[in-house]
């Protein structure tokens, strides 16, 4: 089967720069794993090492039960889709698709058959005799994907394949690639995929699991939902989600009754019991308090006591169905943001810019991070 296992994978460049710091990762057979991270986090380097385009400084790569460290790219059972499509400019679409098979000395009839099959799958049939320069960006990218499919690889590697396309096309290609992955899976073909991107939407919508990287380290690997709900550290919490999670420095203290209190300057928040339990083991007073904008509401008479904070509304951004309400908490430099439905804003917050307002922080969905280690201590 086509399981991919990276063990302690390391990359050190000849100038001594350590790009990848011993990462461990298991990609299950048929899984669609998205690798995401800011520029320069070595996600592409990792993918290129997997492809065999970049030498490995340490650790092992195992594809489908074979260690492939020293195998050339063609023997690793992989196919790759590049950001710039990397179509051969002097070959027609048909030749581009069949080039790998031609090199593998597959008979002409078989090449023809497989090329036609892939072309049909990707709706490329009318384009088969065109040259790459006669294709639009979306068509070129489909050819690039087709070229990968024709090879029937064990593992598909995608290196930011959609970042050269415009927003609309990107959205439709996203769906197409996801559908394709499912089709391959249904027809019992190998469909393990590693997809590198810096686009959150792609990661969240396409990935079975997402691997978040930073500076050559893996920060967290989990399903999109878990990554969003239970970020293990500050980086993941800040990276996933738009608008970003609110994160402010706070002091954590506990009293004799084992109640945990967060103080944002003068204002206090109380942790609910289930959060308090988790925090108890890793208690520290110097913390970062994080809460997603959708878990901040306008306070009303039902809001529990330890969950209300007074803020001054700084700015309101109309997003149509909802407003992003930016407010500053007394003494804090950093603004916080709440996502509040339009009707509530219109009823209660109209013209409240510059005025004080009480906000209800849903503490059961809050996160507490250790400021030193940046770990989430409330999970």
């Amino acid at each position, binding site marked *: 089967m086509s399981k991919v296992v990276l063990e302690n994978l390391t990359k050190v460049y000849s100038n001594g720069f350590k790009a990848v710091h011993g990462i461990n990762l298991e990609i299950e057979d048929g899984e669609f794993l998205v690798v995401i991270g800011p520029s320069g986090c070595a996600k592409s380097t990792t993918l290129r090492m997997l*492809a065999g385009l970049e030498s490995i400084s340490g650790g092992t790569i195992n594809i489908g039960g074979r260690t492939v460290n020293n195998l050339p*790219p*063609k023997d690793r059972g992989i*196919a790759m889709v*590049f950001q710039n*499509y990397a179509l*051969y400019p002097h070959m027609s679409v048909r030749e581009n698709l069949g080039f*790998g098979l031609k090199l593998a000395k597959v008979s002409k009839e078989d090449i023809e058959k497989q090329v036609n099959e892939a072309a049909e799958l990707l709706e490329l049939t009318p384009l088969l005799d065109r040259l*790459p320069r006669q294709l639009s960006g979306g068509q070129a990218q489909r050819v690039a994907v087709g070229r990968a499919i024709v090879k029937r690889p064990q593992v598909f590697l995608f290196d930011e394949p959609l970042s050269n396309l415009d927003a609309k096309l990107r959205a439709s290609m996203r769906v197409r690639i996801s559908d394709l992955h499912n089709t391959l899976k249904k027809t019992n073909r190998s469909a393990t995929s590693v997809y590198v991107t810096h686009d959150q939407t792609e990661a969240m919508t396409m990935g079975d699991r997402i691997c978040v990287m930073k500076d050559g380290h893996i920060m967290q690997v989990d399903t999109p939902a878990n990554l969003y709900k239970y970020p293990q550290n500050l980086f993941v919490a800040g990276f996933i989600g738009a608008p970003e999670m609110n994160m402010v420095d706070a002091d954590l203290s506990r009293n004799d009754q084992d109640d945990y209190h967060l103080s944002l300057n003068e204002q206090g928040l109380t942790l609910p019991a289930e959060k308090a339990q988790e925090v108890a083991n890793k208690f520290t007073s110097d913390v970062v308090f994080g809460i997603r904008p959708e878990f901040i509401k306008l306070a009303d008479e039902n809001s529990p006591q330890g969950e209300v904070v007074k803020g001054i509304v700084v700015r309101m951004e109309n997003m149509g169905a909802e407003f992003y309400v930016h407010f500053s908490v007394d003494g804090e430099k950093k603004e916080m943001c709440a996502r509040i439905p339009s009707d509530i804003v219109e009823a209660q917050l109209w013209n409240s810019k510059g005025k004080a307002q009480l906000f209800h922080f849903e503490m059961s969905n809050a996160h507490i991070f250790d400021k030193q280690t940046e770990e989430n201590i409330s999970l």
Partner: protein
Amino acid sequence: MTKLFIDKSTTGVIDNDRFLRVQMRKQKIGAGIRYFVLLFCGLVMLYPLFWMFSASFKPNHEIFSSLSLWPNEFSLDGFINGWNTGTEYTFGRFFINTLYYVVPKVILTVISSVIVAYGFARFDIPFKKFWFVTLVATILLPTSVLLIPQYLMFREMGMLDSYMPLYLPMAFATQGFFVFMLIQFLRGLPTDMEEAAMIDGCNSFQLLWYIVVPMLKPAIISVALFQFMWSVNDFLGPLIYISSVEKYPIALALKLSIDVTEGTQWNEILAMASIAIVPSIVVFLIAQNYFVEGITSGGVKG
């Protein structure tokens, strides 16, 4: 021309039409000056060529006595006598002789230079920087420095009075300029396609043949073109190595008519010189289309 609409309140231009008229006139005057300068420079540069061509239709006594480009007495004697030459061979023979060494020279140069440039541009070779500096140094080295040692070497190998010394060195990418030119071109090409081909299963030579050479085509054509023109015009090389008249290329044959006749038949020489530049011009015109063809056209977009 599409009409420009300029908001008068913001531009401060009171009369839009007048503003446009002034702009148009300025552009026309500018273009007039530009074309005049270009035409003048072009004529100055082409005049010697025109003169040579017209002089080849003049009788000998008229060539140096009038400045006019149009011959007073039109005569084809220059071409007829020049073609027959003073020797037992016609000028056609010298043409063919030229091709005998120019064609292998061009082919060998292209093959060897492409392979060496590919190595430099795409592989990690031990001491690569040193080798590259050496390569550049050979470009700076005057060719005449090598003449005597090379002559001695080819004499030892018994290759004098043959075309071998003229093209054999090219099999070893000895013209650093071409290698350098190709390396620079290759460095500018994205490596994505080569990586894709590697994944598709190409080894290094397949990569070179199927992917790199097609992408290098414009550069290869430039190399071939330069080498062709320089070789056809080369005088020193054949002068040193070719001694028998039956092997003379054009460059030497032109000189031949000056040597053997007492009163030099300038019309013959100029007529043959006019013919001698024809291959270079034809080859250039054919290859020009490829020059124009975009370099990374197709493969990359965005």
